[in-house]
Structure formats: C-alpha cells, structure tokens
C-alpha cells in the first residue's frame, strides 16, 4: 500500500488535525507514515497545505504531479494546489458550487450539525465514502475517538458520519 495525499485549506480550518488523523490511521493499519505540515505565521488565516505519505517513503514532501488524492477545505485552493496531483488523482473539494471533482458543501452540513469546526470532518467522511483514501470507515472512527479532545469526540463523529452518508 502506497498513497500520497495533500490536505489544503486556510489556517484555522483544521488542516493539521486531519493530517494527524490520516497519520494515526496509517499507523493503526501497520503502515509507515510520513507527513509534512505548515506551521507558524501562515496558521493565522493564510493558505496552508499538508503532505501525507502512506507506505514506504523517505521524504515527507510530495513532488508536484504525484499525489493520488487531494482534500481541499477551501475551494479557492484548488487552483493553487492542484499541481500536486496526478492527472487522474482524485480531488475532494468543499464548495457550494459544482466542479470537475468530488464536490460537497461541507460548510453547510457542518452548520446544520451546529459547529463549523467539523467542516473538515464532514469532508473527511465524504472522502472515505468516495474511497479516495487508503483507510476505511472503521479505522478512521477509531482514530477520531482517540485523537479528539474528550469534549469533542461526539461532535467530530457526527461530522464524520454526516460526510459518510452523503
């Protein structure tokens, strides 16, 4: 199993949390994991990207044109970060418009659940249901339970479930 994933969004959207969930899911499945993240000033609302490499790799960075899957929390990032994806790579995008990719209005569903903070989990659930990721629902749920703050476990699972059902 080898998969290269980019997670793209703006600082504050939970890009780092989803990166961590993907890494933990890889470990749970007994796979080698390497990720690269954006920290520092860009986290104050700037454009951020994480790289996740599952399987046997040496470098944490994904080269342009080699990612299998891209999770985009912000529609405007599709133009900025699509160059990381393979021509046939799958893109899962949070948007209220359609597009030539798996489009989902994760923000709307998160608002319905009662917290915009779970927008990232709705999108993650949807990506799992679209089989765009290396891991399945059961592994990801286990990881969400373990990695979430106790206060947020239920909320996060609800967000993830909502994405799965779409």
């Amino acid at each position, binding site marked *: 199993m080898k998969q290269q994933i980019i997670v793209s969004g*703006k*600082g504050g959207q939970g890009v780092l949390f989803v*990166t*961590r969930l993907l*890494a*933990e899911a*890889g*470990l749970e499945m007994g796979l*080698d*994991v*390497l*990720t*690269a*993240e*954006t*920290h*520092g*000033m*860009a*986290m*104050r*609302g*700037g*454009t951020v990207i994480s790289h996740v490499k599952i399987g046997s*790799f*040496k*470098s*944490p*960075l*994904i*080269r*342009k*044109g080699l990612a299998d899957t891209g999770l985009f929390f912000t529609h*405007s*990032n599709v*133009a*900025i*970060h699509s*160059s990381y994806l393979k021509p046939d790579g799958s893109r899962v995008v949070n948007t209220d418009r359609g597009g030539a990719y798996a489009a989902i209005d994760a*923000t709307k569903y998160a*608002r319905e659940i009662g917290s*915009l903070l779970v927008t990232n989990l709705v999108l993650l659930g949807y990506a799992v249901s679209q089989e765009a990721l290396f891991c399945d629902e059961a592994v990801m749920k286990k990881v969400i339970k373990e990695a979430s703050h106790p206060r947020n476990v239920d909320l996060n699972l609800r967000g993830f479930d909502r994405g799965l059902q779409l």
Partner: protein
Amino acid sequence: MEIEMEQKILMGNEAIGRGLVESGCSLVSSYPGTPASEILESVVTFAGETETPMHIEWSVNEKVAYEVALGHSYTGKRSAVAMKQVGLNVASDPFMRSAYLGVTGGFVVVVADDPGPHSSQTEQDSRSFAQFARIPVFDPSNPAEAKEMVGRAFELSEQYELPVMLRPTTRVCHARQNVSCLSPEVLSRKAQFERNPGRWVATPKFLTDLHRQLNDKIDAIAGLVELYPSCVKGDGSMDRYCIVSSGVAYANTYEILEDLGFIGKVDLFKVDVPYPLNRHFIEHITSEYTKILVIEETYPTIEMQLSNRAIAGRISKAVPDYGELTPEIIEKVLKAFLNVPGKGEPDAEEGGVRPSLCPGCSHRAAFYAIRKTFPKGILPSDIGCYTLGMNLGAVDTCHCMGAGISQGAGLYHAYAADSSDYPTVVATIGDSTFFHAGIPGLINAVFTGARFIVVILDNSTTAMTGNQPTPQVGIMADGTPGNTVYIPDLVKASGVRFLRESDPYDLDSFISTLKEADRFCRSDEGGVAVIIAKHPCIMDREARKKQIRYRVTVTEECTGCNVCMKQFECPSLIFDEASEKVSVDQNSCIGCGICSSVCPVGAIVAEEVGGKK
C-alpha cells in the same frame, strides 16, 4: 535497560523531545520560535507520561536558556537547549565560548533551521555556525532519525566533553512519522560541580590551550569510523560519478533517484555529521570521483570541506545557492548532473491568501488607533503575530527580537537632529518579545534621552508560537506556578516617567492616551513614553468568554468606500464585488464590535448580544 515499547506517530519536534526524555537528560530549556516550539512542549508531555523527573523551562530568551542548560551540564548531569536558528544568534555569546571550555554532562544544542524560509528572518545554516564554533553537528533526514541522533549526540558530547548540535530543518521538525519509543534511561546522577577556575573562568591566558584542546577534539571526531557517511553503492557503470547529501535533502534525493532508475547505479552518500566531515571520506571523495554533486541545505557546509573544484554544488551554482531544496528543484539538479533528458516539473508559483491578525485581535484595534492618530508617524515594530500589523500599514520595520525599540531611538535621534518638528515614532512590541530582548533597548532609550512612544502589546501570552506563558503570567512550562514578574514594574525600573495602561478595544480612550503620550514626549521634561495596550489574546477561550459580544452587520448605507477593508483589515469583513458593498462573515466574526467605530458613514452596526464585562 532499554525495552522497545511501542510505535507512535510523532512530529519531528516531538520525536526530538521524546529522545531528550529517553536519554536521561535532566534539564531542558528553550525559548519558543517556529519551527522549534513544540520540542519543549513535548518534553513536558513525555516527562509527565513516563514519570521522569526533569527541570523544564521556557526561559526569557535563548541566551538565558543556553546558559541555564550549560550550568546544569557543569554538574555532570545531562542537559539540552532548544531554539530556532535565529535564536542561536541571540545565544551566540555563550555558544561560542562553550566550545572552548567544553561541558561535563552531555549537552545537546538543538537548533531548528528554516530553509525557505517559511517563518523566519533569514535562512541561515546553523551547521555553518557549528563549524564556526568548532562543535560537531548532526543533520537528521526524518523524525525517527532525529530522535536516534539525540542519543548519539549525548554520547559524543560526553566522550569529548563538547556541546553537540542537532540541526533539524522545518521539514523534519514538522514532519510526522511512525517512531519507536523506548523507556527513558535512568542515570541517577548527583550534581557535582568541580571547581576548576582555569577552565570555567578561563581568562585569556588559558584560552590558547583550550583552543588547542578544542582543535584536537575536532580532529579526533573527524577520524571516527562510526561517523563515516553511509553509501548506497552503484553498480560501477558510473564509477566517476557520486552524489553526497544530508538532511531532508537526502530523503528527497533518494526518492527522485529511485524514480529515475539511478539507485544502485550511481554511488549515493548520506552524511549524518556534516561538521566535522570525516577526514577519510574527504580523501575518498576527492581521489575516487571526478563528477561530484553535493545537495545540502542551506549553505555549502559539506561542499566547502570537500574543497574540490570539480564539485557541482551551491558554490558552482549547479544547485541554487539560496532557498529551500524542494523536490522539484532537486529533480532538476539531478537530471542536469546525470544527463537525463527532461527538465523536471517547474517549481510553480503558489499564490494563496496572506495571513492576517485574527478577527477580534486587540492588536488590530491598537494598530488602527496608532495609524489614525499619527498618519505621518514612523512605526518600527518587532517579531510576533503583531508583525501582521503591516497589513494595516502600521508596521514600518521588523528586524530581529527587540530591535524595534532600539531602532525607534535611532529614528528619533536622526529626525530630532534635523528639526524640532520631528515625526512621532511609535515602536510596538509584544509582551513576550519585551521580556526576551526589549528591556535593554528601553533602558538605553531612556538613558540616551530619546523621545518616542513604546506601545507594549500585552495579550498575556506568546501567541504566534502557540500561546506559551510569559513571566508575567507566572505559569511555568509544565503548568506549575512560578513567580510573576510584572511588566509595569520593569518599565518603571527602567527609568520611564510616563506609563499608562489602556485597552485598545476602547478606541477613544486608547487614542487619547496616544495623544497624551505624544505631548509628554514633546514637553520640556519629555522622554520615552510607554503605553501598555492590554487585552487578552482572543485565542484564549476563557478570556474570550468574558468579553462583550456584538452582532455586527452592515446596513444599506455602505458606500463601498473600502476604508474598513484597508485601514482595519479584518478577515471577517468581505467586499462583495457584485453589490460593491461590504458584508460581515458571521462564520468567522467573533463580535468584538470595534469595526463599527471605523466606518466613516456609520454603516457598520454592532448590537450587544452576550458576554459580560
């Protein structure tokens, strides 16, 4: 005895923190700075989890952190200090001398570099700094290796009684990887400082001999077989060619060579210790190969030690002599060196959204007020979240920690010498930066008769790096209470005769305080005026709950003049191109309500909906 415990997903900085706890280290000090901040935090976590007694502290700056850890090592116990690369500039004084005097207990200096740079003032290479000081340096290529190198660094440090540097880069610090975790080594050492003034006081007459000893140590380390670079051998078909690399650049180089079909074809060397570069390795490379490519970040540290004119590298510019070595750049370099057709993917421009102060940040209110009050003022600033005040046109300089106040004095003296009608200078500095390096600058400004305003943006935290506590908060790194040191006391003790505290959320009152300060500066008895702009960071959940919340909307009166967008620059204010009016993004607005005072036609309305005074 060490037993294999378990695999954990660790960030590079966490792996380093874990390595420090596992190595029997009993003191770790640090000052926060990206990309190094999480190292100390994870030492706290892992020391707690493994019930390992350690002294762990956020020191006020890197020089202090270095000296605290150094003193600990003098007693025979193991210690470490962690910082970002420019932190070593602050700590350079004790750093340089500690190479001469050496250490007793193992002493590891973790310095995180930032090629790119992603979040720093420079992309300086700390390996070159290690070479300048003449201490060995390890260059890890991933988090697992970084952790393992902590142990190797402690052993080398104790064997040669030298500080040893571990130099991860951003890509290692902020990578996550599955890492094997072991139980901590228990050293049970008792503090034992042996008086030896010839060494620990080392007046100049001792230093030539200490310098000779240092050189002998480095020569010995350069001959160590166990530090000879490892090699992925080629099949001999390209026997004149070799590639030498280290750090995360090695990891990228390996993967690209693999994809291009060159692994097992061309000799690829991995350097773990770039300085001192193994002496026998240098002989081997320069005698056996005529085509040599060196790929390393960020300065040509390895390349200069090989000192061979045939080398393709940063000096010959076969590798760009600045910037991060992204996989795309390395691919291009490798293809040119190995005569592979195709140029490789271009390193496309990435664009994107610039960062800005959070919605509701009190710094925004302070900057808005300062710029509005002094439209022609000169506004030096400093390092932290508030550097983003440049988005509001309210930050004119940012140099290095603490420089804003001293630069303010320099600016004042320049203008005041020309005319008594000098522009108002307002230096802004955060609370943590003030503790770190602002105090000497303030004392100097008072002492030399400068007349300008210093605004200490006190949000009671070190926000930029992840909300670490400051001495005024009085909570230590592990959450236990320390002694509180108050900023007003320090300001008064520095000889400042004008000191006010004001909450920038109350714009009118803050603006009148600024005007009062300016009058003081220009009065007969004037000098440096200090205003403490006090409001908690809105990232602090509890503090945020305590403030009044408004529902902010924009009425039809909006003329689309964009004054709020340009002068206030809140990410929650959105300009709609179609209607040519501003609206409020209710998803991100925290309801501070300040923007209602900014609109020239009163179209932004704030209605109180909750919270308490």
